[in-house]
């Protein structure tokens, strides 16, 4: 269970310590850490604080002066007639991403680890392939595959006497297709990560359950899931954190949040406000909402890891 957040306790292990011998030796750790720390400070932590600061000002990125407006940007975000839609869409995206990139890989990694015997390496390496391909490429290919006039999917549908809707113009469907395009890229990665956790469940445990005639789905839910839960929760959180950021690419390339804001979400709203309307204040307010969501996930990660240290070992 050593995902990035689980190693804290082990890091304190006394065996891990080497006593610095000299005065210069005492400085060494700081010198070694300086490059990464300075870069993170300048391009991660300072921007985080500056975005928080900007969320209390009215500005357009070019005007020489910023006007302090208190919580007005947040008020205008919450009273925006589209706010309900943005949050609702965000929730729907998260739900679909969890279904496609957390639940499905979990089930399939169980099947590949304990049910199916042949072709494991073939399945793993082909399913992983899209992870190395740019989502810009993936989006363009899917746009063509699903093109309602000349695309192969509509050609097949026509042969069967069906018509394919213009997905990018259909409320609801647009979110589903954008989520599928994004999942095309991240499914394989999540699959490999969760598989590592699932296949570490001892085969004897699964065999014993099998001999007791426990149905396969219960072996999965009652034995394998609890025994791989820390990897599982890591992938769950990762599905949201990477999925919500990756989904920006197809939204920006295909729909620009449309039709009629049907495919916009929290992450696209920041970009749209900042670089579409040049409203730095509202953009930053949306960004801070996004940060609160991710901060909550970070909190879950810590809380869960604390528990798993005793649970899974």
């Amino acid at each position, binding site marked *: 269970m*050593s995902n*990035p957040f689980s*190693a804290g306790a082990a*890091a*304190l292990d006394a065996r891990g310590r*080497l006593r610095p*011998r000299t005065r210069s*030796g005492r400085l*060494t750790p700081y010198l*070694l*850490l300086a*490059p990464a*720390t300075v*870069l*993170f400070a300048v*391009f991660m932590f300072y*921007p985080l604080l*500056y*975005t928080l600061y*900007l969320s209390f000002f009215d500005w357009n*990125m070019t005007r020489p002066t910023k006007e302090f407006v208190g919580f007005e940007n947040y008020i205008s975000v919450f009273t925006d007639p589209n706010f309900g839609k943005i949050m609702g869409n965000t929730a729907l995206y998260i739900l679909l991403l969890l279904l496609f990139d957390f639940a499905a890989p979990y089930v399939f990694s169980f*099947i590949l680890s304990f*049910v199916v015997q*042949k072709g494991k390496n073939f*399945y*793993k*390496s*082909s399913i992983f*392939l*899209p992870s190395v*391909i*740019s*989502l*810009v*490429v993936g*989006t363009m*290919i899917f*746009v063509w595959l699903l*093109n309602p006039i*000349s695309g*192969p999917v509509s*050609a097949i549908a026509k042969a069967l006497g069906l018509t394919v809707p213009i997905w990018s113009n259909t409320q609801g469907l647009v979110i589903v297709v954008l989520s599928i395009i994004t999942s*095309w890229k991240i499914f*394989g990665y999540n699959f490999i*990560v969760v*598989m*590592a956790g699932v296949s570490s469940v001892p085969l004897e445990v699964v*065999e014993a359950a099998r001999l007791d005639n426990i149905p396969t789905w219960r072996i999965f839910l009652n034995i394998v899931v609890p025994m791989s839960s820390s*990897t599982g929760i890591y992938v769950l959180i990762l599905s949201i*954190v990477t999925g919500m950021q990756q989904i*920006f*690419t197809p939204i920006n390339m295909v729909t620009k949040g449309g039709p009629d804001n049907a495919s916009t979400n929290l*992450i696209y709203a*920041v970009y749209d406000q*900042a670089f579409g309307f040049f409203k*730095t204040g509202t953009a930053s307010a949306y*960004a801070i909402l*996004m940060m609160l969501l*991710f*901060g909550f996930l970070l909190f879950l990660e810590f809380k869960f890891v604390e528990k798993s240290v005793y649970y899974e070992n």
Partner: protein
Amino acid sequence: MKTKPAVSVSRASLWHIPLAFLVAMALVPVLFALLYSFKSLQSIYGDAGLFTSGFTLDNYRDIARQLPIVQITLNTLTVAVLVTACKLLTSILAAYAFVFTSFRGKTVLYFLLISTIFIPFTVTMIPNYITVSKLNLFDSVLGIVLPQLADATGIFLLRQTMRSIPKSLIEIAELDGISRMRTLRDIILPICRPSIVATGIIFFINSWNEYVWPTLILRSKENYTLSLAMQLFSSSEAGTEFTTVMAMAVISMLIPVVLYLIFQRYIMSTFASSGIKG
């Protein structure tokens, strides 16, 4: 030891159907892009339709005519190499410090650096845009590279590997009076080579595929990266020139796919170790 399948063979083999569906979902888009990048648009609108058997390099010639594609590929390569080299360097130094030295605030600093994984790009985008603008780095390689020279995932992955090196080995080197830098270069780096290679390839591929930040920073076609060149085609009327778009897709994904095919095992095991006990 031969193991008995957990489920009876006949029922278990039914699961190959959904697995095959997953494989198809993953590979069909890639294979279609490859196939149609070598077909002419006219032949597809002819009698045989999508199942035309023609072969042509016209789509690739079209791209070369419309865009400085060699320059664009070199730009992408330059960015990816710079980002990869710097991220590896900063990650190796940081990972070494976290594993082989002790200092006050180690755990706090580690978690602080690692938690940057949870900072979405939308939160850093506006201030970094302003910073790059103040430094006059718009439309330049440096402007793309600068904000991404350190990487929390790299620190994490390399720390994982270094933790598996026996401490006694390092203690012996220390007793022999071998300097820290020589220990790092001659003992630690060779042991960690597979995981450094894999981490480097991951950095390279991710940088190669990067879209959002270059979109904000780059202005002129000569400075474009492949993702931006690809996007030029998304604004042309949907689907009309799709064979050219597919050729562009093939150019963009060629290097990452080839790297993956060569280093598959390294990459997958390194990714896998990011989620479980190392």
